[in-house]
């Protein structure tokens, strides 16, 4: 696997991990301000990684990664509710998954 392909796989795993964390907060209804802040800052970091990755991709994967970066950026905006953050993260993950599929199955 190339370094770039490996980087997309990594970013997908990180996004899945963060989404799982949001799911757990949602199901336990115990998300507090601190959790949301952490999730938002992790989403912002992921958005930067995805933006950088998008630059090195072929058109198909690039479009998906650009969409994902936009959604991750939205998830990182302060003041978003848990439900809004979850929706942005879910969309971001879908787009990253599509980018991974593009790279794997072309």
């Amino acid at each position, binding site marked *: 696997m190339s370094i770039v392909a490996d980087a997309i796989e990594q970013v997908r795993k990180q996004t899945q991990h963060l989404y799982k964390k949001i799911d757990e907060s949602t199901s336990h209804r115990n998300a507090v301000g601190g959790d949301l802040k952490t999730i938002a800052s992790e989403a912002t970091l992921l958005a930067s990684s995805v933006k950088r990755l998008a630059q090195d991709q072929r058109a198909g994967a690039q479009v998906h990664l650009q969409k994902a970066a936009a959604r991750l950026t939205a998830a990182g905006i302060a003041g978003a509710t848990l439900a809004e953050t979850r929706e942005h993260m879910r969309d971001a*993950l*879908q787009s990253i998954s599509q980018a991974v599929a593009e790279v794997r199955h072309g």
Partner: protein
Amino acid sequence: MDNYVAIVFNTDEQAFQGLHALWNLDDRGDITVHGAAVIHRDAYGHVDVATKNDDPGVRTIVGTGIGALLGALAGPVGSALGIAGAASVAAGTAAGIGAVAGNVMGLTADAVKAGEHEEAVYETQFAMKTGQAAVIAEVSESSNEPIDTVEQRLGGTVFRRAKGEIQDSSFFGGDYADYLYPYDYDPHFAA
């Protein structure tokens, strides 16, 4: 190719193994799973979605979108019923929604049994009998082989429809994605 797959098993346990096997294929890069869940048809024909152990009952209610997805997987007859079902359950209760999803598959199976439309035998293959469980998933795959080989070894029967074909010909609500977990999980049916 982007596909929706339904892999039907005789027991919940087999379906749980089938779900993990699907994600293992993803880990190896053989396929890409965009979302997957385990569903179960109980003795009354109601369909439930298995949630995570620490997610009690949150997503067991089968909503309109997943009802349409199940109908679409069942073919044109199922699609039509899925659309009708979606409209009728918009404000339904959990039991009502489950019943509609169950009816989608029940009626589809009946249509095949009745032999009213020869094509239906081919088009409406996906049906779950009471007591059976299935893994449903949205996947990208270069070939059918990895999923077919691994899931058949576990006792599953694989049904597949192209995503483009379904989206062109049927109605989906926006909520079906909420029921397909975008990561591997330990499925659990609420008692």
